């Protein structure tokens, strides 16, 4: 037992912390942008989407890692897709049976987790070559890094686009021009381009603070 690596060795901890910062799937690797644009109009779907991705990604990483020695190399992408698709359908069915209201809000986007490139990317790059425990940490870390950006973008877009957060009014009704005030919601915020711009601003802030990320070539 003495030569076994501790569960939370510095190397394993980095698997979780790296994707949150300097190796973030959205802001550094620029993966998974499509779903980040689609579901972030409101905070609540962003959070539920983030949680669903965490569940799917952690389980898929562990499953693929357990199967890694048996998967025929030539059909490994197909095997990965089958595992992801099966998990996503399960998540969707469970949401429909137990939290019907939330599942209706997310509608098509749960199905679209299947096409999220971060998940396949991690399976291919990490889970196929590593043991289950590091794979689980890697999955959690990357999904959290993705979810974090989703929630930040959802927060900004709902606050400035609709004046609410989680459906509650933040900006008082009396401020609005329609009630004799001075304030108008930014209609751009509810359209997809604003998600790109918000992500761009996050990338800008991150790179100006961490010069290692700047590509000088």
């Amino acid at each position: 037992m003495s030569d076994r690596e501790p569960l939370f060795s510095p190397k394993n901890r980095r698997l979780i912390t790296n994707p949150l910062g300097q190796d973030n799937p959205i802001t550094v690797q620029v993966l998974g942008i499509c779903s980040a644009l689609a579901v972030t109009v409101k905070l609540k779907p962003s959070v539920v989407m983030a949680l669903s991705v965490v569940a799917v990604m952690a389980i898929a990483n562990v499953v693929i890692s357990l199967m890694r020695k048996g998967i025929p190399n030539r059909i490994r992408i197909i095997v990965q897709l089958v595992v992801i698709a099966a998990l996503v359908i399960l998540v969707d069915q469970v949401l429909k049976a137990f939290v019907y209201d939330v599942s209706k809000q997310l509608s098509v986007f749960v199905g679209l987790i299947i096409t999220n490139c971060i998940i396949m990317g991690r399976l291919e790059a990490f889970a196929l070559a590593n043991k289950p425990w590091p794979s689980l940490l890697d999955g959690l870390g990357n999904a959290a890094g993705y979810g974090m950006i989703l929630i930040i973008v959802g927060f900004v877009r709902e606050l400035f686009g609709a004046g609410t957060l989680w459906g509650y009014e933040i900006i008082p009704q009396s401020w609005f021009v329609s009630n004799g005030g001075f304030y108008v919601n930014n209609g751009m915020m509810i359209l997809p381009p604003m998600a790109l711009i918000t992500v761009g601003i996050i990338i800008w802030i991150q790179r100006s603070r961490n010069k290692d990320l700047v590509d000088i070539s």
Partner: protein
Amino acid sequence: MNTQGNTYTFLYAAIMVVVVAALLSFAAMSLKPMQDKNVEVEKKQNILSTVNIGLDAGDQDNKMKYIEDLYAKYIVDSYIVNTKGEKVEGDAFTVDMSKELAKPNDERKLPVFVSEKDGNKNVILPLRGKGLWGPVWGYIALEADYSTIVGASFDHKSETPGLGAEINTTAFESQFVGKKIFDEQNKFVSVSIIKGGAPKGDIHGVDAISGGTITSNGVDAMIQECLGNYVTYFKQHQK
């Protein structure tokens, strides 16, 4: 063992597919009754909400039972009519509007739900149409004059959250209250959803949703078509 050979690859793929298929069909079948129940209760809740009943269902401990009880108490009658306004045999609750709308005009079965609260009778009519990504549907309740709208509720399968999906919010639905579907000459004009906002005091128009134009147009066409089927029925009962 050689995990790269053809035989192994084929066997692996075949077994994987069977295992995954079995797992998913098992999950789908065991969760199906709960999902169906959710859909049925939601339909009842939508019908009730057009006449302002059961709006506090979200606060109840047992939402399902609460809705079922209210439905049994307030929906006093339901029947099917055709486009000529004659009654037809059948159970109004199980009529699938998407199938009925695919039929030729005079074969359509049109459900009518009658609610009674504090002595006021209202008719509630189902709607069904197309949004941007998938079907949209809803219910509209009318006063005894068969023209003034008491309430409307809409829902959708897969409209964009924050844009088209806003049709099921109270802000959008409440605009319909008090609008009229017949004009002063008693001609059917429906209620239009107007991009850029309906003029103040327009009793036949409401505001569309910004960023949700295609969904708004879909809802507009849905109201026009579905209520249009009932025009003969309305005229027979208007007095």
